[in-house]
């Protein structure tokens, strides 16, 4: 059982007693490791001086973290509602990019190269690189610009190579039985060829969001 002791609804911050294990500060981004332990005295300071509210009894107990986080996250828009016209922009995170200093941009490029591309997260990589390449801060810095262009080419070629591999699989109907004998025996080569063609068309194995 989680007891909500104090909440700052506009930010989704909360002080929470978790079983007998003391008070934790919960705040976005909500991750397993982000709920740090704080002192008992923090609750009175947060409420008396920092604008946290004591929740009403109907919102003070939650059976698990998922339920609590849903409550905190779901209340932010309403708490800010009248003050932020049109609500929170969906692209609030992406909008930060134009303010990113060079060291942050360099770190993003490193992560594109070392995380996104090897993991095959090409859409993520492509989206980020295309947005970076229209920034003045990137266009005006040959080091950043060249690296971004190079990575974008790499993303395109790896995407194409992957698509070609799937395409080859789709076309080589007669070889499917040799490459996947058990699957062919179970489903037939025509079905497997159709699946390969579908994967090639959508660029990913699973049809997320469709």
């Amino acid at each position, binding site marked *: 059982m989680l007891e909500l002791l104090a909440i700052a609804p506009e930010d989704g911050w909360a002080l929470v007693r978790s079983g007998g294990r003391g008070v934790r500060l919960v705040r976005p981004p909500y991750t397993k490791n982000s709920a740090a332990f704080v002192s008992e005295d923090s609750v009175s300071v947060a409420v008396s001086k920092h604008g946290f509210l004591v929740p009403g009894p109907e919102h003070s107990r939650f059976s698990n973290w998922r339920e609590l986080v849903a409550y905190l996250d779901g209340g932010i828009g309403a708490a800010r509602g009248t003050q932020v016209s049109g609500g929170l922009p969906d692209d609030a995170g992406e909008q930060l990019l134009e303010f990113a200093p060079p060291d*942050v941009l360099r770190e993003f490029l490193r992560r594109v190269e070392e995380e996104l591309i090897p993991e095959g997260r090409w859409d993520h990589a492509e989206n980020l690189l295309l947005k970076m390449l229209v920034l003045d801060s990137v266009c005006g810095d040959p080091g950043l610009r060249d690296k971004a262009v190079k990575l974008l080419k790499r993303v395109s070629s790896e995407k194409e190579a992957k698509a070609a591999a799937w395409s080859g699989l789709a076309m080589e109907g007669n070889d499917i039985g040799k490459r996947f004998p058990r699957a062919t025996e179970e489903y037939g080569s025509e079905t497997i060829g159709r699946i390969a063609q579908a994967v090639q068309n959508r660029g990913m194995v699973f049809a997320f969001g469709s």
Partner: protein
Amino acid sequence: MPLVDLFDLADENARRLDDRFRALEAGSPPPDPGDLRRFEEAVTKHGRVALNMRPWIAAEFVRTGKYLNMNDAVREDAALSGRPENELLRERLGRFYQKRVSFDATFDDGCRFQYGVLNIGSAGPRSYGLFCFVLKKTFPKAGDRVAYLKRDSLNGYVADDGRVDTGSLHGDLAPHSHRHRLAALKHSDDLDTRRADWPAMLCSDDDYVEAIFVADLGKTRVSEIRIARSDYESLWELCFRAHGRRLSDGEKALAFDFRVVLEAGRNRVITLKVLDDA
């Protein structure tokens, strides 16, 4: 009962702090005089009043230049909702109502008090806000009033039933001119730590010298916003992730407020300074 002037109490305590400091230096065993002097110098040179703000409060302050204390916020809510201020205050404060109201009612201008901390270079008590707004060295100006208290006012000097221990509080107050002395007396036993650790020692989540003040706060009174590197990096992580997936409302709100702060930095309204984590 006549109301007490907190700032006059602090002024009255200046001589007592000097006496206690001299007694400390002459004590047995005396603390390292070099450390004591260097710590006092650090506080005199780098000591600023600072306020930690949550992202929403920080963005509002940057956008509007307004920083509301509890009573101001309740007054605004009452005007908007038509509900009585006292009812709203009770609702907000719950079981802490008595402590807050008793403390405010003990002092002249108690409802106007604003609360910060004495900070010599840390990102402040981050449990209450990622963004640490540091006031300029020129604070306090003529007309501002400020007093420093050895510990948190409500947790250190007010009982749960609302009784304020004005005797202890009086002994632990310092005027601006003696803030270094108060800090040195408080930490005289801790000064053998590395000097680089002094900012975190003086001001952490759980322990700080509180600054209580009455002043008009506006953006022009702020010299910089400090943020811990780990918090700064987690804010940029939002930007990175946002290009690959949809953010939750909490993440969007955080990104939205961070953008406001960054925009103020770009427009040279306020400087953002990233500090390595203590």
